[in-house]
């Protein structure tokens, strides 16, 4: 039973990083994140306008909504309703998963490795 749960856990974790990398590996989604870094908290209209005018990317509004849903699904984006409006915010905290899995090599750890 414990083994089964561990197995599930590890699958879920791999799926998490895989989905995260897949979410990032799309030029439109990367551009959306770039624009949210430029100014956080944008409406769908502003995101579409920025993609068209600053990146020359002109997907349909529905396609942009789908991209936002993918980013939201892996936790890189959250949307908040404020009264009648809905704003989208970037959340880079899931990116820590990537550096946790592939940590940056420190001089000590590289020299350890080169020791005979």
């Amino acid at each position, binding site marked *: 039973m414990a083994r089964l749960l561990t197995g599930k856990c590890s699958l879920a974790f791999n799926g998490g990083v895989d989905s995260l990398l897949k979410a990032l590996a799309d030029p439109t989604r990367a551009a959306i994140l770039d624009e949210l870094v430029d100014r956080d908290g944008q409406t*769908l*209209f*502003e995101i579409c306008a920025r993609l068209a*005018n*600053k990146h020359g990317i002109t997907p349909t509004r529905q396609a942009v909504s789908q991209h936002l849903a993918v980013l939201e699904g892996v936790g890189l984006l959250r949307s908040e309703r404020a009264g*009648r*409006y809905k704003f989208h915010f970037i959340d880079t905290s899931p990116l820590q998963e990537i550096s946790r899995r592939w940590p940056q090599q420190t001089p000590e750890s590289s020299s350890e490795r080169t020791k005979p």
Partner: protein
Amino acid sequence: MRINLASIFVDDQAKALDFYTNTLGFEKKTEIPLGDFSWLTVVSPEARDGVELVLEPANHPAVKTFRDALVADGIPFTSFSVADVQIEFERLAKLGVVFTQQPTAMGPVTTAVFDDTCGNLIQIAAMAQNPGA
């Protein structure tokens, strides 16, 4: 044939007339009472014989659903031309106007989007000055 009117749905005509004149700076052109509502139009003082904006009652049941969907996605119902978006943004923000998009350079045009307090988002836009001109 020429375009002489543009319409916008407003929740309350009296409130809309106040916002479109006293806050935005347009002028009332026509007000003809027609039962519960009026035929109500405003014009820009920069073009008194230009296109009139009709402040149309939003009482049709489909209007709310339509406008709520546009507003949720931040989509402006229409756009007005201004000389300088940043200056206009600062002027309107001081008057308490709520912006859903602050002034943003979008290629050759700078835009911003505000709430007209009558159920719509409105874009203001200005073409970038040509530095060589």
